[in-house]
């Protein structure tokens, strides 16, 4: 049986940052299992720029951002197994993995970092009626075809969902000569960044149809067209508003879901809103010695924040391995209320740490000139004015260690928006 101190599941930005941080903290034997043929994760297909502004202070493409970490990993003795799928985790943190060269492997490990990333919601998740022709795919699939495999997914495209990947692909397909007819968005506002609406849609006169959805897919072998409909305030299609749009491709950009099959199978508690594990400030799950970070924990907007969060998990795992167990069973909860949809971490261990705790959160609607407040037992311990808060943009606040004293086990820290 292979023996490691730390096994990292996933070799994208989260897994690489966690492994490197753990190495820096003195962990000796580390293994990264990656199911794709190279390290880098989804960054390898995100060839547009805009990555690294926070972390490196420069604007990089996805592969360039990934390469900075891949090069660092190559300079360490961190073991990497690519084309390797982790199938299971046992209660005592053994990892069951498989690949073509080694076959089925049982790997004993002290700690595990889960960094499997997220997956796009497919057609099945949103139940669009119609036939099942070729040409219906997620925006990320079309992105992989275009940017790694060198295929253009179609020539006349309708995009459903205005998430950032959909917007980026609208521009990419247009530059490659395809006609992107429209982007339909179910909600009355876009799920993507404003700058992407301007640079990816307005630059190319691609219409963004808010409060519209696809209600029928047509075609036998290949998509021949879609029916779109306007939706009412309850998001239900309005009869009589149907419009037929001929196209050969329907691209979906309708949300991302953390990929937690593995976490679920080992009994890790998941957050109903984030779809990721419930963790403490060190990113440890309820399964002792198992940590989670990056998009498998909650979907991030910026890879820079994935890197930062994964370093926390890597350090947490290192402290666990070295027996420096700052962790205690004495925990309080964080909870988003009044406009705050979720908060990560969901728990804070009250221990002898003198480190501040950074809370990440997302709002459920757009707020302007609002105040973010943190309260405990009715007392405000933090308040900050924000010019704009939007569901598409993750926010963070820092709680000072002195504000975490005098809590009782199971107490709540409430994060809310006022105004």
């Amino acid at each position, binding site marked *: 049986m292979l023996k490691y101190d730390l096994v990292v599941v996933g070799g994208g930005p989260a897994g690489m940052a966690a492994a490197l941080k753990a190495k820096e903290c003195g962990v000796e034997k580390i293994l990264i299992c990656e199911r794709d043929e190279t390290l880098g994760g989804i960054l390898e297909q995100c*060839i547009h*720029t805009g990555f690294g502004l926070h972390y490196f202070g420069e604007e990089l493409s996805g592969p360039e951002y990934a390469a900075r970490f891949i090069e660092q990993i190559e300079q360490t003795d961190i073991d990497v197994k690519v084309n390797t799928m982790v199938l299971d985790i046992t209660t005592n943190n053994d990892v069951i993995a498989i690949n073509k060269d080694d076959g089925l492997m049982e790997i004993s490990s002290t700690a595990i970092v889960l960094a499997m990333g997220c997956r796009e919601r497919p057609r099945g998740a949103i139940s669009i009626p119609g036939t099942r022709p070729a040409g219906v795919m997620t925006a990320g699939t079309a992105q992989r075809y275009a940017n790694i495999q*060198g295929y253009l997914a179609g020539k006349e495209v309708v995009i459903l969902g205005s998430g950032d990947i959909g917007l980026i692909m609208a521009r990419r397909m247009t*530059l490659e000569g395809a006609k992107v007819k429209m982007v339909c968005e179910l909600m009355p506002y876009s799920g993507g960044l404003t*700058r992407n609406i301007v*640079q990816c849609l307005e630059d190319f006169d691609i219409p963004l149809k808010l409060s519209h959805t696809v209600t029928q897919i047509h075609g036998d072998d290949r998509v021949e067209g879609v029916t779109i409909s306007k939706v009412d305030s309850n998001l239900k299609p309005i009869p009589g508003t149907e419009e037929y749009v001929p196209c050969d491709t329907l691209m979906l950009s309708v949300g991302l879901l953390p990929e937690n099959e593995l976490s679920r199978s080992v009994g890790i508690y998941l957050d109903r809103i984030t779809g990721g594990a419930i963790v403490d400030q060190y990113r440890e799950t309820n399964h002792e010695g198992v940590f989670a970070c990056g998009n498998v924990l909650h979907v991030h907007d910026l890879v820079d924040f994935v890197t930062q969060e994964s370093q926390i998990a890597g350090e947490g795992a290192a402290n666990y391995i070295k027996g420096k167990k700052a962790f205690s069973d004495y925990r309080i909860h964080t909870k988003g209320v009044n406009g705050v949809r979720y908060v990560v971490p969901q728990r804070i261990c009250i221990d002898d740490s003198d480190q501040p705790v950074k809370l990440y959160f997302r709002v459920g609607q757009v707020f302007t000139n609002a105040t973010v407040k943190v309260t405990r037992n009715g007392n405000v311990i933090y308040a900050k004015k924000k010019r704009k808060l939007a569901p598409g943009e993750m926010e963070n606040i820092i709680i000072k260690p002195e504000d975490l004293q005098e809590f009782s086990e199971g107490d709540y820290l409430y994060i809310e928006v006022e105004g």
Partner: protein
Amino acid sequence: MEVRELTCVACPMGCQMTASIDNGVVVSVTGNTCPRGKKYAETECTHPVRPLTTTVKVNGGKHPVVPVKSAAPVPKEKMFECMDVLNNITVDAPIKIGDVIVDDICGTGIQIVATNID
């Protein structure tokens, strides 16, 4: 005097700005909340530029294409012209990050460089 409404793309804030242009010169910008917004509005109203990222074909590489970017933003009106050039180029592996693929794309003086290995 011409007046233009713009959405700033300098950061995720997306400020709504108004620029006044007189004889091709931006004389005032309002609605921006930082100096970057003013700079974006000035560039956007006089000579708009965009970063260009795409792929070029590779001979003998691990993948059929390798991603590339313009080393600096290219004039917006030349994006499709640049795409035409890049779609008709084939490079030979091995390619390293930063390798110059085109030295001066469409007379802009801007380099096209590889952004991944292959």
